[in-house]
């Protein structure tokens, strides 16, 4: 049901974008106002969310320790999975952000005739890594539309990406990888009963929007062969704040742009914010040097405790009976001395 709602929402976005992109009255809105507004919402929302997290205190140092601690000098510590230094933390975060270290640990626990069998399960990690890296590649490739002249580095990257000279224009590896990874992640949401159970509207929605963007993008590049010069003219116009409504960019481009805008505007309100949040997780970005270096809680406040004096008062007779030393006696002896 959640999936149906979200695919409905995505189709609605596509239809609205397609129609608005063609209508005389809607064109300025679809081609100029919506992209700018979406970008503004994205930037402001993203910054607000991250700043909001960053501004909230971290009262306790609670890293999840995934390897040996640094203790005695002859025991080798796990410097990356249980870092005790800043360098170690940076290493851990680097592995986490760039290579999805924690997800790499993933395994699969299954019951088999009353026994629990834990086996390897790396597909989710592989698909997630492929998805994110190819998405990054595709985003970076799009930069060529926003700058003139195109930097040499970008051109080099494109050459590598288009290494398999299959067809004209060459098929980009990142396109293929992205499509496959996205298909896997979507299929997993539908086919795996566990993941289906936990999936919500927003989980499907994000994937469907990506799918819509990918499909329209692929169509333009490989099938309808969109006029790249016009696209670039239009994009440069947006980038330089001299926006001009394009004349020759068709329906598919309108849908592509509309969906990208929706994704950007939706981003700060959604789980996609994990992009910023992953850097701030206190179980990952703090060193496990708890006993070596005191962590300060900015809102630490005094609490009601049961003090030794109160305790001794209550158990005085029993302490005496058991011949245990009393603070009162210490004090008396001290004053006698």
């Amino acid at each position, binding site marked *: 049901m959640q999936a149906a709602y979200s695919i409905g929402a995505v189709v609605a976005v596509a239809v609205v974008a397609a129609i608005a992109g063609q209508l005389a009255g809607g064109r300025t809105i679809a081609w100029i106002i919506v992209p700018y507004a979406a970008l503004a919402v994205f930037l402001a929302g993203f910054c607000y*969310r991250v700043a909001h*997290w960053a501004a*909230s205190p*971290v*009262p*306790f*140092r*609670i890293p*999840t*320790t*995934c*390897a040996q601690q640094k*203790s*005695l000098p002859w*025991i*080798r*510590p796990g410097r990356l999975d*249980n870092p005790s230094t800043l360098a170690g933390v940076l290493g851990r975060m680097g592995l986490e952000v760039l290579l999805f270290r*924690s*997800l790499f*640990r*993933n395994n699969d*626990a299954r*019951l088999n005739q*009353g026994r*629990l069998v*834990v086996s390897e399960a790396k597909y989710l990690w592989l698909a*997630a890594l492929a998805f994110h890296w190819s998405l990054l590649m595709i985003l970076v490739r799009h930069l060529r539309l926003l700058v003139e002249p195109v930097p040499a580095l970008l051109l080099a990257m494109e050459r590598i990406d288009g290494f398999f000279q299959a067809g004209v224009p060459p098929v980009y590896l990142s396109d293929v990888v992205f499509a496959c990874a996205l298909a896997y992640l979507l299929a997993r949401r539908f086919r795996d*009963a*566990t993941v289906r*159970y*936990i*999936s*919500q509207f*927003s989980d499907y929605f994000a994937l469907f929007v990506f799918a819509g963007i990918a499909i329209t993008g692929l169509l333009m590049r490989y099938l309808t062969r969109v006029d790249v010069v016009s696209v670039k003219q239009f994009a440069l116009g947006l980038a330089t704040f001299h926006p001009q409504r394009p004349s020759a960019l068709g329906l598919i481009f309108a849908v592509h742009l509309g969906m990208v805008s929706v994704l950007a505007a939706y981003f700060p309100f959604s*789980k996609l914010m994990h992009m910023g*949040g*992953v850097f*701030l*997780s206190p*179980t*990952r970005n703090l060193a496990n*040097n*708890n*006993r*070596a270096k*005191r962590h300060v*809680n900015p809102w*630490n406040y005094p*609490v009601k*405790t049961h003090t*030794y004096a109160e305790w*001794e008062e*209550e158990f005085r007779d*029993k*302490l005496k*009976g*058991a011949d*245990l*030393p009393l603070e009162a006696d210490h004090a008396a002896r001290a004053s006698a001395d």
Partner: protein
Amino acid sequence: MPQELLQIEAKKPAGDWKNPAVEFRKGVICYSAAAKNVRALGLPHPRDWQPFDADWKLPPDWKQTLLEGMKDRLRKYRSFRLFMDICVRCGACADKCHFYVGSSDPKNMPVVRAELLRSVYRRYFTLSGRIFGALAGGRELTEDVVKEWFFYFYQCTECRRCSVFCPYGIDTAEITMIGRELLNLIGCNTNWVLEPAANCFRTGNHLGIQPHGFKDSLEFAADELEEITGIRVDVPINRKGAEILFVMPSADYFATPHYFTLLGYMMLFHEIGLDFTFSAFASEGGNFGLFSSHELMKRLNAKVYEEARRLGVKWILGGECGHMWRVLHQYMDTMNGPADFLEEPVSPITGTRFENARSTRMVHICEFTADLIYCGKLRLDPSRNDRWTVTFHDSCNPARSMGMLEEPRYIIRNACNRFYEMPETTIREQTFCCGSGAGLGTDENLEMRLRGGFPRANAVKYVKEKHGVNLLACICAIDKATLPTLMEYWVPGVEVAGVHELLGNALVMRGEKERTANLRGEPFAAEVANA
């Protein structure tokens, strides 16, 4: 014990988790906290009620209290706010939870446990949730949701296993801790947590043992040691001017098999001539406050530093206990420090400086003992543990909140001849919980404990069949209290022991009489007929 063997079977998740209806039945829940214990701690809304009751007699403004409590904690804990926001529901955590594996209840997947809270967060604290409600994953806060929270936040042992696998490090322990804190605000708490906490607040320890009882217990242990070894060890209590304060979980001096671990400590301290003292005030290192709220944790923990200061010791040594060490390692210094009245810990025997504890100034006994062995200060005869084929259960907190993995293993390898590891995916940072931690270890909750402990038991069974393992060593008081039941049920024939019990068995003391029996009074080696 359940009469029939529990059927642990995989069921596909069905239904909609947004429906909060929960069936409270005996065996899978903990009972409510007695009003006297709630009162003793000065916590809100003491009353007589049980989770089975239709009417939980919540305070009239319960909803507002909960929402304000959430707001307050969202402001105070980055962890909480972040973990409410960034889950992508990838599902990697699902089968990592021992309660999900053992119960097949889909709401025990860590992701769903968090969603129970997250859905309310979205509905009341996010723009999209306020506008779009259920479509944005929001859920109304109703009495049924409160009951559901109670059910599932007391069906999590805060073991942090899921957090190891989460790509964003979302820690269900943190969610559960906050969830329980919220429930505490409206008087929904369990007796198995609050009674020990109330005892601890008054007497200094969970079991409510008063100072004379504390002394009797330790003297009794000294008598027993004299019988076993022929050596009379000292029992210094509340002794001012000692170099080291030793703090342990109270079960060590009042429960079995913990007690044999205590014997091990006492032998060790005597043998190396340690200048130390026990304390009848700081007679508990464990901290059931951790299972209730951050504030209660701080209140119970305060006595450790207070007593160290009063006695004028140089530093503190701590015994074998899991959640106690979560508090000591990750919270104590922040909550009740700085410990500037103590000195940086240095082993008086080896001269080793425990640099990893230079601020908190409290050292784990396994770190201390591993150093002694490494420096050749102990004479150990591992053949005295020959009746045992040992495996080691990493307790959740020392493993995933400290990373103390090698120290206990080093001790075991030096004290025992036969040691075998369980499969990699069930030990170290991936260790499976005993299923009874975080205040769930009560017999009224036995069915759920046995279900939650199943993955651990299953791994023990594997090494029992493969290597003939008959002893499960661990360094946690809750493990020692609850693993014997778990073993008896799932893997009969496997005993449970603390690491320092094994050390005590192997320790050759100067001037000891000829020994033939271990600390349990059993012959060192199993008789051939039994082998």
